[in-house]
């Protein structure tokens, strides 16, 4: 899946998972896996690759669960107008 993640580059993301969108003033927090995914999306990595990295880095079994959760995360970002 290819996403337009240009808007994500605007985001200020702290190591603690606090995210500030300087264009809209919106703030939100993400957990460790969300932070990992968000940074990977900012780097324009493919969603499939991010799912594989998440499984590896966080030592999680069940690639379908990861893919589903990642899809949900991307959908939330899309709702906020941060990915297209």
């Amino acid at each position, binding site marked *: 899946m290819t996403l337009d993640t240009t808007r994500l580059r605007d985001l200020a993301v702290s190591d603690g998972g606090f995210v500030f969108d300087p264009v809209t003033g*919106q703030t939100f927090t993400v957990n460790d896996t969300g932070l990992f995914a968000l940074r990977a999306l900012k780097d324009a990595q493919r969603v499939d690759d991010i799912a594989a990295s998440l499984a590896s880095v966080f030592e999680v079994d069940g690639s379908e669960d990861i893919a589903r959760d990642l899809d949900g995360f991307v959908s939330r970002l899309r709702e906020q107008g941060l990915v297209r």
Partner: protein
Amino acid sequence: MMHAIDATIAVTGVNATDNPAPGVAVARALRHEPAFAGRVIGLGYEALDPGFYAPGLLDGGAILPYPSHGRAAFFERVKELQKVFGLEALLPTLDSELRSVARLESDLAAIGIRTFVPALDTIERASKPQLHRLADGARIRVPDSETVAAPDGLEKLVRRFGLPLVVKGLYYGAQIVHSEADALAAFHYFAATWGVPVIVQRFIDGIEFNVAALGDGTGRMRGAVAMRKLALTDKGKGWSGVTVDNPDLMTLAESVVGALSWRGPLEVEVLSEQGGDMWVIEINPRFPAWIYLAAGAGQNLPYVCALLALGLPTPRELPPYRVGTMFVRISLDQIADLDTFAQLSASGVLEMRQETPA
């Protein structure tokens, strides 16, 4: 580096309550600038206006006659205060004062008090009842709106705009209403509070942004700071906010300033729809109550306004403001000297004691 100010400046609207006037924020912004070596005289309408009691904020204060007493009474009072304090500039911060000050500009200048406010015609063209007419000339989007002088006009507008819609007072306040009955109640409330007409505006579902700006009267915007409110009071006033970086907001403010050759401070209230369309819902011809955020974020618009009022040099370009700078208001109890209250109550003039160097 800003040019120094060594002048006595009067700032109105020091009633920093839960629905604060901008005066305290403007006074703080002046004091915030290292080049400020002047005096700030706070002007209010009640002896208990909280700004009079803020430690280190003012060098003096005075009570003004209410705007309902008319322009002549206002001018006479300012003349008296000029003799007491040696006022050299007046920065009005309340909507209810702006028309009087704009009309009195040359009279005030004649007694040595300079201002930097929008022309009367500009204030009228940007006013709530006339805002929708500005859309074409300024190339901005303004929600459809109509003025209503009697409640029987509401039914037609409910049909035309649909529900919900927004009912606004002539000077202050807005309510989103979801039924014709609520619209009627809001009409009566605003008509009783601020008089008629009442403004009825199509509802726009979007995120609100506010831009504080300063025009120099030639059509050039000297500076602007955009902010999104993060927390509201039950009256809908911003209790916390954060500066944002959105070029569309700056373009919008520039369009308003350019179209009206705006002179002085203004606040543009904007709604941004999900699809990105931006609507100007209100233009206030003064600084907002949150204006200290502009100074705190690196763009001291009140100080530049004071420089312009005094005819002093201003920087060619103001520095960009820091995006992500927040303000968070706080309610706290100031310990006050009874003498402050006594002076303001008895004579309407507060003369601060100068501290003697040790």
